[in-house]
């Protein structure tokens, strides 16, 4: 099937796009890579009256370091992130996470801004950004604002983005030396939506104890979940099988991932726990080898 009829604009600049959004915000959709929107439109589950195509706005397509932070333009494609050397060096969690996104063809088109704005709770990058304490630059004709990931992700497919706003960029703080990161997920077939996944960041002190641990989960709730209590529990602890197991059990406490055809709530909780254990173990190993 093909989509229902819609109006189409292809602004050449960010300002043009913001003008159009100010005018049509309520009944339009921004299209970037189209990897989620177009299938929804072809199924006619989404029937936007107007599409604002931002593919021609080159100023939104970049990945660069700014004052130590990583700044990713909204129109950067997944494949750019996947293959950017500076990302692999400084933010390997993103490199690892983006490899789990769909298939190569999808990553060639899909954009970072699109993934963030779509806010699928099973998506990899929102969880990775949550782990990294990323902020999102939002712009509209009314001005610019920067919101943290936890203000931005509200619920399934729901964000703090106003109808006239555009996600312009993602800001990711730098990681301290001696930090290890890991991203793991479980899907029955590569490219499927994850039934459970975890991103972990571990920083070890000189004494080998955990100085900082961050755990973010995907497919765990309506938005990316940060397991704060488990993170707290690991601070100052010696990272071994038993402390990781205990923290992972803590990480999934109170979670109620939705039961469906692909897995019951109980099964999914078990998966999240396993993914957390595996992510923490890997991250700890990487932290240890980076400090040694």
């Amino acid at each position, binding site marked *: 099937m093909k989509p*229902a009829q819609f109006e189409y604009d292809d602004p050449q600049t960010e300002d043009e796009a913001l003008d159009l959004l100010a005018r049509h915000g309520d009944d339009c959709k921004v299209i970037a890579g189209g990897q989620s929107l177009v299938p929804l439109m072809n199924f006619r589950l989404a029937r936007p009256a107007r599409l604002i195509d931002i593919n021609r706005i080159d100023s939104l397509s970049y990945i660069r370091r700014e004052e130590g932070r990583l700044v990713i333009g909204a129109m950067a494609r997944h494949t750019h992130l996947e293959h950017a050397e500076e990302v692999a060096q400084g933010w390997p969690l993103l490199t690892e996470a983006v490899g789990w996104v769909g298939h190569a063809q999808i990553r060639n088109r899909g954009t970072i801004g699109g993934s963030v704005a779509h806010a699928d709770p099973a998506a990899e990058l929102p969880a990775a950004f949550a782990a990294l304490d990323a902020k999102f630059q939002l712009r509209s004709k009314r001005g610019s604002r920067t919101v943290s990931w936890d203000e931005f992700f509200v619920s399934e497919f729901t964000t703090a983005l106003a109808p006239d706003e555009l996600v312009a960029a993602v800001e990711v703080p730098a990681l301290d030396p001696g930090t290890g990161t890991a991203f793991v997920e479980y899907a029955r077939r590569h490219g499927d939506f994850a039934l459970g996944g975890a991103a972990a960041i571990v920083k070890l002190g000189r004494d080998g104890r955990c100085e900082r641990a961050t755990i973010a989960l995907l497919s765990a709730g309506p938005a990316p979940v940060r397991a704060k209590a488990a993170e707290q529990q690991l601070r100052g602890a010696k990272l071994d099988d038993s402390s990781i197991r205990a923290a992972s059990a803590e990480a999934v406490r109170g979670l109620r991932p939705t039961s469906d055809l*692909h897995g019951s709530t109980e099964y999914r909780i078990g*998966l999240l726990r396993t993914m957390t254990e595996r992510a923490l173990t890997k991250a700890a190993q990487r932290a240890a080898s980076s400090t040694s």
Partner: protein
Amino acid sequence: MSIVGVGHRRLEGAEKVSGATRFTDDVDLPGLLHVQLVLSHQASANIRGIDLDAARSAPGVIDIVTGADLPSVNAPSPEKPLAVGRVFYVGQPVVAVIAESQSAAADAAALVDVDYEPLSITVDPVLAMRDGAGRVLDADEEADAADASMHGAGTDSETNGATPRRPANVSSVVNLKRGDTDAALKSADAVVKATYSLAGVHHSPMEPHVSMVRPEPDGGMTVWAPTQGPFHVRDEVAKVLGIPTYKVRVVPMAVGGGFGGKVTLLETLLVLLARRTGRALRLNLTRQQVFAVARSAPAASFDIELGAKRDGTLVALRARFHYDNGATAGWHGGITGMFLTGTYQCPNFEITGYEVSTNKTPVEAYRAPGAPQAYFALESALDELALQLKMDPIELRLRNATREGDPGPDGKPLPRIAMIECLEEAQKHPLYTKPCVEGEGVGIALGSWGGARTPASAGCRVEPDGTLTVHVGTVDVSGSSTGLAMIAAESFGVPLDKVRIETSDTGVAPFGPLAAGSQVTYSMGGAVQEAALEARRQLLEIATNELEAAPEDLEIVDGRVTVRGVPGRFVEVTKLVAMSTEFMGKYRPIQATGRSAVQAASPMFTVHIARVRTDAETGEFQLTGYAAIQDVGRAINPPEAMGQIHGGVVQGLGRAFGEQLAYNVDGQLRTSSFLDYELPTADQLPDIDVKLIEVASAVGPLGAKGVGEPPAVPGPAAISNALARATGIRVRDLPLDRSAFVRR
């Protein structure tokens, strides 16, 4: 010249892999209109009214048609081209919108408003059989289907003369009985008692269903369709239009995957619409519509009791099973009964199979219909029995295997079969003999298919350039045309690249069977061989005259007819053809016909070996090795046979990995896209080692047997058996629930 038995690339392979093949949706006709269906979103409801006003005024709309607008068609109510008064399943076509473009038709269809009065819904087949359950089909439609009690009953089997009262929503009951099952089970040393079930699955052809029709000036109709059975479509269209068959021309198009699901589906409706509008029409289904409209394979459940003596000798089998047929009367049970009773020697059995109707999309044949279901139950139960008896699972099967002369699945004495050879080959296969590493398990399962056969004919013409055109009316869904070309090339005496198989339309093609039932090469091979030999005879007849030599002294070498042993005496084939077609010529044109009617089936057997490891935390399993050992009689084109087996293995394993048609209580399909309907993917599969066994058929062409269906049969039991041995956990329902294998 040796062509048959040597590997050749598929003749149409390059065009398929390069995307050049022209499918039905790629063909255009001047003035072509497009049809979009409005499907029922209710599983059981009366149609109170249909509001077409908004749709009629939509741009580009030419006509909108409801069931009431069509002439009466003799078909059960759920199977009318468009619903009349009532709907029986979600996805049943209710309205057809005809418009200038596909998009216009889709836009207008969205504006059609059908007012339904919901009726009670029957989704679960077990509940459907209870007294007082809502009736899915009208009583008279149910009663039309006779009990299939005698389907496949062995000569010494008895059927329950007086069939017991049929439970509600059961269109027919299969009853097979021999000996005293009760007593035998009581005296057995070991008994497995368990329930096994399989979800319904869909053929999932890469090419969605599509058809195009054009009314002809003589009142006839031309149909372009990717059908497995052009003659079948022709007859059906002629019947529904009430015109002679010669006025219907079916042009068989490339089939982008059929597997039993592409015989006829949309054609009856389309020709009625085309007659009404007088215009050429095309209807192509979206993938979601394919899941909802195009019939699938039934779900099934089996209660099994299987008993044996301490030495493994089977003493009794009791099986009570049902098929969930959706809104139609089913027919899989008879075939299933034959496999349950005819594969192993078992002196006592009692088989009862129910064909249940529910408010779901009606079912259809799908690659070895009735066999994957029967063998998942039977081969799982045998594995459980082997574990109980602490016996090697292959030994257990060898001890009970049927042999030549034993009554086969159809009750008749079996011809020479290769069940033992397949089992013995598996027994010495490295995947079976090599010790398992920690956490690994190896499982085996057997499968078979009886095989179809249909009389067939073929034409053969020698072209002016010396090439051969073989005319057939049977389509190629498996690479079979390459095999037929190889038979023709070898029979006539030309290289393979000089032969073209022309699959013609029903107006001119020699009659050929349905491309189904693993029968194309088996049924057509002899006809093509005879046609090519006859063409050769006709050519040599002319050469005999020209060369003044006896036909038995002639041979065809490098495009020349030569006199054996006399190097200088030859005549070019092209010259002979020219002489037989020239103005004022004296020789008759070379135009040969070949016919065949294979007199008996050649049952096919296969054994699969699966090796698995599991992840105890996620419950996920990974195949670490897989082998398929299959008797093909004689492989006409060995890589083609192996390719068929690869595809069949994967299609069969899909039932275990995750394919399922899952419905909610309202009869809504929850797996109507490839997002939720989990087809197996390459990352789930290891290399598949195929071992061809060649025990020649006494009746098949050049010793060949069928190939296509057996490989889709034993996979799910093989993998489930391997998992049980790797983990100690037996999962008896398909698809396999990963959470069952979690151990923390």
